């Protein structure tokens, strides 16, 4: 199994480890409920070094990515991060990702660990498709999987800025960088040169918890040092279990659940991140084949919905739970479900078959946990 630079730290903290997409990852340290609470009320940190970093560089790469992804990566400020979806020609979803523009014009695509290798294959295949489709465009596109050289730590929670400013001090960021960090807006990034390291440290105001937070991309060799600085400052570690609960509570979709090769971005209710005003790979195809939509459910009783449980409306099976869990913050069962496109807009209640019983759930708007 693959190990992140922080593997020994997790073992020393006696974390429960699981195989996550081929990585030996911590699912929980002290307990999921406690770790969720830390992020909602204070701050916690996550090892997310398993995430992939794929570099797309060379002449014409911005224009190529505009065609490859569900939204443009060009025509915005350099420090602005783009969340976009990578689609197959048939409109199915390959992955969802963040695009960072580096100082030298290279684009860094941050992708899901489980999808990284297939993403790289798909991007390389798509270069050929792109060149055939646009023979007049000149390009020197190069795709490099740089994941092994990066560690990543997410610092999330209402006290995360305070923690980051302390870290910036200890890492010796200059006055200008500290000021940038202090005023960093959501989905913006700063890049910091670290002496002795070829790769830059990137700090972005991003996350997957619904709380204010930051993600730090680090040269792999620097990851343990930064983790230890955060730990010594008193930031507790939080595992993948809490991360998944937090993202669901925040109403955020997850690849493999609300997005997949057989689920289009429109079916997964990702339309906000799909810009049809321009031509892009899979765009027309996804419009034609989308037959479902995503709804959000909250339990009226004690029942906890789980992935794969069937959803019923007026005794008729209308869909299936795509992500279901107990919400530690609400103390209730919450879920996303994929239902037919004709599921009535005004439906306020459904039933979910939980084991042998039909349990009542309310249809609600996300996020489940409102800030």
């Amino acid at each position, binding site marked *: 199994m693959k190990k992140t630079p922080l593997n020994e730290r997790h073992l020393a903290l006696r974390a429960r480890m699981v195989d996550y997409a081929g990585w030996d990852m911590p699912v929980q340290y002290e307990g999921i409920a406690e770790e969720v609470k830390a992020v909602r009320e204070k701050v916690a940190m996550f090892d997310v070094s398993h995430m992939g970093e794929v570099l797309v560089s060379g002449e014409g790469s911005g224009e190529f990515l505009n065609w490859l992804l569900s939204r443009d990566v060009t025509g915005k400020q350099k420090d602005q991060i783009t969340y976009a979806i990578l689609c197959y020609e048939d409109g199915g979803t390959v992955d969802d990702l963040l695009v960072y523009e580096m100082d030298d014009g290279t684009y860094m695509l941050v992708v899901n660990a489980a999808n990284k290798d297939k993403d790289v294959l798909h991007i390389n295949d798509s270069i050929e498709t792109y060149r055939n489709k646009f023979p007049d465009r000149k390009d020197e596109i190069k795709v490099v999987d740089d994941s092994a050289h990066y560690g990543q730590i997410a610092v999330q929670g209402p006290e995360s800025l305070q923690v980051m400013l302390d870290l910036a001090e200890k890492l010796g960021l200059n006055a200008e960088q500290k000021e940038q960090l202090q005023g960093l807006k959501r989905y913006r990034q700063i890049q910091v040169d670290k002496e002795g390291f070829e790769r830059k440290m990137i700090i972005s105001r991003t996350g997957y918890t619904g709380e204010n937070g930051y993600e730090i991309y680090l040269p792999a060799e620097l990851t343990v040092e930064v983790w230890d600085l955060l730990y010594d400052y008193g930031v507790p570690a939080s595992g993948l279990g809490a991360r998944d609960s937090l993202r669901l509570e925040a109403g955020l979709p997850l690849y493999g659940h609300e997005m997949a090769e057989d689920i289009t971005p429109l079916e997964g209710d990702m339309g906000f991140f799909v810009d049809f005003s321009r031509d892009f790979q899979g765009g027309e195809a996804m419009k034609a084949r989308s037959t479902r939509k995503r709804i959000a459910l909250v339990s009226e009783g004690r*029942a*906890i919905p789980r992935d794969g449980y069937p959803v019923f409306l007026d005794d008729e099976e209308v869909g299936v739970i795509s992500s279901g869990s*107990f919400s530690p913050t609400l103390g209730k069962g919450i879920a996303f479900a994929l239902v037919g496109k004709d599921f009535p807009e005004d439906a306020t209640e459904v039933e979910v078959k939980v084991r042998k019983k039909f349990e009542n759930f309310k249809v609600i708007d996300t996020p489940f946990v409102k800030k």
Partner: protein
Amino acid sequence: MTTVKENLRYAKTHEWVEVEGNVATIGITDYAQDQLGDLVYAEAEPVDTEVDLGDLIGSVESVKMASDLYAPVAGTIIESNESIEDEPEQINEDAFGTWFVKIELSDPSQVDDLMDAAAYEKFCEEESA
């Protein structure tokens, strides 16, 4: 570290069984509660349910996981512990002190097929290795 209690019998599906006369009291082991994590839901099957070996006798869920309890012995459920529905956390706090159901045995010899404490301890070590 989780504990194993002497004088109980154990199933491979991590139920403990305490036999008194013709009645078996059943719960989940300390090892099982630890593997599941903080329990947020628990339910026992109702009184008068007749169960064969391996039939459903209860369910537990943590934030991330759902798991069922299976009858380690056949018989009829004569008592069902409803307090676990309101306070599933008591199972985390005291797994051997929190029972789910009491079953009147239809075949007491089935108890002999269950593991003793030493065998179960070894079974858990092998499972977590």
